[in-house]
């Protein structure tokens, strides 16, 4: 789960980590009030959306007058931020964070994440702050220092001092840096962080260390023990289908194509998208109905898939292990009243009770008047789905002998 910058900074502040003074606004007059309360003669206005690269997309502005605070805020609120991370549709700015501007002497990059390899947390620090870390890794890898963090000791001060030395920080800043890194790690670890990125962490003209930005992602599986974090979830940042899917415990990601997918199991769901592509089609979504797929879930899955107007064909690919194929078949039939008659359904069932399942579908299809095509193998089904999506006159290019012999 992603946190907004202002939410993450709230956590940092509560742990005694230095962050600029600031406040959140959802209207331009709010923004003006915040700036007046902050006092000073320069402020930074930052769009609060879940996406990196805001600066380049016009989501971060420095202003020097109250009238600019008002004008820039009213322009920024409601605008669409489009960055590499938001996709082409972008994200609408609903809130801004107004902060006192900071006198920056030096910029540093710092992040914590989970290192799968060593099975520990890891800290990454770079002397080239304010830049995309992937770019630094590409162009100047020697500027990056990484350390694994022992889960027993946590982020020891010694480790912070060691890193500060390695990135060439002035000796007068050693202890301050180690203290900030230690507290940041505690914020990260105490809240089951998957990622905490401070870019930039800055040294001010007065020789203080301050977190100018904060991006945090928390382990969804651990939210049960962080009710306050769960309350911070901003459903406005998710696509409507993703919100709906999460209510029904379905896993959904939207894509650009016209073949909707309903699959049990994440691996098979990804493989289903891949095989559609290999036959020249384009998947409209990733959707895992999970191991406990029942009639209700199948119906909801249909509804969610069909909220995407691009969908022409729905490809149902189920390998029944624990899930019985006859139940899924019944679910498909019951849920098919959600499907308009100009769409088709291609169903591939395999595994437990497959014969009963196929029979139910064949008999039921005749009654519904819908086009329900059944297929024996994944390849066969994918090919049929692609052909149907392309329309009769333009059958998709066939791939040779992809079908496994039965």
């Amino acid at each position, binding site marked *: 789960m992603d946190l907004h910058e202002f939410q993450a900074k709230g956590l940092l502040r509560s742990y005694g980590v230095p962050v600029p003074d600031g406040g959140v606004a959802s209207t331009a007059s709010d923004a003006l009030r915040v700036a007046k309360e902050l006092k000073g003669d320069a402020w930074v206005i930052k769009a609060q959306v879940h996406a990196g690269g805001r600066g380049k997309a016009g989501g971060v502005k420095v202003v020097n007058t109250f009238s600019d605070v008002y004008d820039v805020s009213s322009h920024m609120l409601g605008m669409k931020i489009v960055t590499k991370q938001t996709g082409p549709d972008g994200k609408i700015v609903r809130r801004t964070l107004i902060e006192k501007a900071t006198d920056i002497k030096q910029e540093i990059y710092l992040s914590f994440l989970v290192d799968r390899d060593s099975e520990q947390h890891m800290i990454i620090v770079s002397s080239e702050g304010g830049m995309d870390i992937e770019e630094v890794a590409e162009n100047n890898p020697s500027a990056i220092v990484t350390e694994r963090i022992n889960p027993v000791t946590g982020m020891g001060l010694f480790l912070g001092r060691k890193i500060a030395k390695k990135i060439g920080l002035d000796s007068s800043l050693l202890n301050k840096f180690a203290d900030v890194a230690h507290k940041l790690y505690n914020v990260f670890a105490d809240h089951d962080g998957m990622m905490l990125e401070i870019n930039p962490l800055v040294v001010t003209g007065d020789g203080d260390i301050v977190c100018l930005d904060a991006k945090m992602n928390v382990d969804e599986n651990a939210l049960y023990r962080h009710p306050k974090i769960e309350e911070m979830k901003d459903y406005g940042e998710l696509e409507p289908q993703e919100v709906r899917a999460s209510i029904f415990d379905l896993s959904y990601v939207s894509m650009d194509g016209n073949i909707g997918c309903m699959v049990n199991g994440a691996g098979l769901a990804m493989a289903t998208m891949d095989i559609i592509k290999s036959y020249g089609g384009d998947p409209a979504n990733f959707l895992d109905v999970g191991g406990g797929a029942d009639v209700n879930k199948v119906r909801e899955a249909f509804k969610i898939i069909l909220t995407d107007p691009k969908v022409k064909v729905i490809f149902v690919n189920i390998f029944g292990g624990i899930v019985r194929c006859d139940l899924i078949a019944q679910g498909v039939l019951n849920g098919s009243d959600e499907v308009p008659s100009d769409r088709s359904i291609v169903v591939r069932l*395999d595994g437990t009770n497959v014969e009963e399942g196929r029979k139910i579908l064949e008999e039921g299809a005749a009654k519904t008047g819908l086009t329900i095509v059944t297929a024996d193998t994944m390849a066969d089904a994918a090919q049929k789905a692609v052909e149907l999506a392309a329309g009769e006159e333009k059958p998709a290019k066939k791939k040779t002998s992809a079908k496994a012999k039965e």
Partner: protein
Amino acid sequence: MSILVNNRTKVVVQGLSGSQGKFHAQKMKEYGTNIVAGVVPGRGGSDVDGTPVFDTVEEAIRATGANASIVYVPPAYAADAVMESVDANLDLCVCITEGIPVKDMIKVKRLMKTSSSKTMLIGPNCPGVITPGECKMGIMPGEIHTPGTVGIVSKSGTLTYEAVKQVSAFGFGQSTCVGIGGDPIIGLKYIDLLEMYQFDAQTECVVLIGEIGGQAEVKAGEWIKQNFNKPVVAFIAGQTAPKGKRMGHAGAIISGGDDTAAAKMKALEECGVHVVQSPADIGKKVAEVLGK
């Protein structure tokens, strides 16, 4: 031969009284797995469908000689259940539970690295392990498997069943199929399993099924190139997955440029692995590689 489990494996089910534990214990028994005990803290002395229940894993071992455990405990308590198995020094612990916090798994792995316990962990968030005809420890449909010479190791559940089905359709059975799980931090990894397949006389070929996210497949490829002397067929799921989106599995997320399906497929190919583009070609490729 086979790896990890066989007809001498004696299984204790942790969380036997829950709906999942109860249901799957029954299925495993039907398959022929030797389920000797259940563990439900506070319910020791009772039984579930005739299987004796103990308060602790240690007591279950003492009374029944169990040497492996399977965990169906809910996510908030599952890591603790795994640590109990490690502490009790079982040979093997298979954790089916999905949704365990990553931080809990960091603790589990730290315990496993620093204790003298011999326990090997499979999972979490996995379908389990099966040696066809001998022992099923997991939630996979037993009937699609047949004894044979192909080892299958995979991060996925249903995609593994798909591979099993295809391999069987071409007339090949399986030695042992292992679902290692789709979480970022797991027990045994590809290389651990490949080392076992290397020394298993029954296994002639290995199917490796991976997905986007992490570096495990690439590392496996490098290890295969250096050490493995049996043919490997691989498929990587998520060729069409967008960057930065979690695709169902907690670990299935493209975060850099080198954890995409394309990058992994290329790396594996360069290591001499037979990579298939389409998931429908797994069985065919196995048949081709084994020359039958």
